[in-house]
């Protein structure tokens, strides 16, 4: 379902439909998280991405009032280059996943409840406290930056 709706994101003609398909993709991914017993991650993914960020996306796209007629026609060579680049990316991904597959499965089976909120909090605030704090500072600076730009 995640793959199907992801494909629909790319091939829908209407940008608003694309965004709606992307939301369905996020739902499907959250479903995967919950199946892997990572409930916190799943629900936060829903709240943050599907609930907030995609709404802002929808805002912008609805206000731009795009439709199929006004879409700029792309160069033929540009399309060809896109296909080649996409194919290369696919090749790299397949090669990378082929090696990683077995390892990932073993790790997932052994630590089935790592995604529960208690374990997640413990891991974040003991083993990974420095990266966690650094990322929070990054967010803070991004927020200050947004305020500065907004004031102009």
């Amino acid at each position, binding site marked *: 379902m995640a793959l199907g709706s992801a494909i629909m994101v790319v091939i829908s003609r209407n940008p608003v439909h694309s965004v709606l398909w992307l939301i369905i993709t996020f739902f499907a991914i959250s479903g995967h998280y919950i199946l892997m017993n990572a409930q916190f991650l799943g629900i936060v993914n829903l709240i943050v991405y599907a609930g*907030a960020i995609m709404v802002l996306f929808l805002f912008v796209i609805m206000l731009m009032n795009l439709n199929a007629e006004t879409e700029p026609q792309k160069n033929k060579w540009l399309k060809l280059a896109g296909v080649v680049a996409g194919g290369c990316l696919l090749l790299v991904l397949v090669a990378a996943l082929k090696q990683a597959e077995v390892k990932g499965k073993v790790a997932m089976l052994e630590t089935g409840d790592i995604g529960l909120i208690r374990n997640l909090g413990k891991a974040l605030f003991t083993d990974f406290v420095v990266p966690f704090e650094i990322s929070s500072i990054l967010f803070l600076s991004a927020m200050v930056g947004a305020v500065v730009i907004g004031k102009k």
Partner: protein
Amino acid sequence: MHSALLAIDLFLVIEKLVLIVGIVSISLVIAMYETYAERKVAAFIQDRRGPNRAGPFGILQPLADGLKLFMKEEIIPNTSNRFLFILGPCLAMLAAMMTSAVIPWGGTLNVFGREVNLQIADINIGILYVFGVVSMGVYGIMIGGWASNNKFSLMAALRGASQVISYELPMGLSLIALLMLTGSLKMSEIVGQQLDSWYNVLYQPLGFFIFLVCAFAECNRTPFDLPEAENELNFGYHQEYSSMKLGFYLFAEYINMFISSVVMVTLFWGGYDIPFINDTSLSGMGNWLVLLQGLSLFIKVAIFIFVFMWVRWTIPRFRYDQLMNLGWKGLIPLSLVNMVVTAAIVLLKANGWKF
């Protein structure tokens, strides 16, 4: 062995199905009578009589209204996006109903020797689930407003969505302070802690106030009903809607009101606890105690619904910039302060009041 497991599962499925159907129909009936109560309260505040034609005291008025909405002609505008136009009200309704799944409606009932928990799903991320569903509610408004291909509807949808997103933040922050006290995200555990101690509202009065204001904003109720400001936007995001699809939008608002009252009661006012009485001393009453507790939950909820209506007919509508200022410059800093103070006190208490 295998068949025994299957049998138990079947009972569980039946039990949950009955619960879901029961709770959904209860919320629908309550939402129906909220429309009646709203008109009666408005009439009382404005010194009128209110609906009094259908049945004694006009008690059949909601049925008549529903019948009217069902019988009306259904109009789908030519230039609208048909599928999304229908999807909008469905989503609004769905999001409104889904929250009730994690709310503990009472203790465990004893039915024919089976313990039946009056909570549909006791997941350990209960509150986050509520937030997830609330943030889904925006899509009903946005899709409906955009699909009707009308500038006023679009403007109203944008307003509604940005309002809901902005007020989700202080709501979440005020809840974080509460969660630091309870130490659990499970709704059933939060109620359980309040059963034999003080209600959370005594520890978190500011948090409760912020939550209340945000709940008004999330439900698009009057001091914050900018998406439906008639004098600026004709009618709001449901301008192009007619018949029962319009009814669904309006109904979803009333269900939201009911559900947010329930959430407030559960988190801050002890859920199904009977006030001023130690519930454990009545445990000999068995099932009757559980029913009494459920009744006390509904009485508390009714009081909150009345507060919603009271505020609606008392406070005039905000201007849009005032609304945003209140949200971002008033409530968020206030809830941040509340959070920090609570965190400091919790930490000090854990250290035995030593610095």
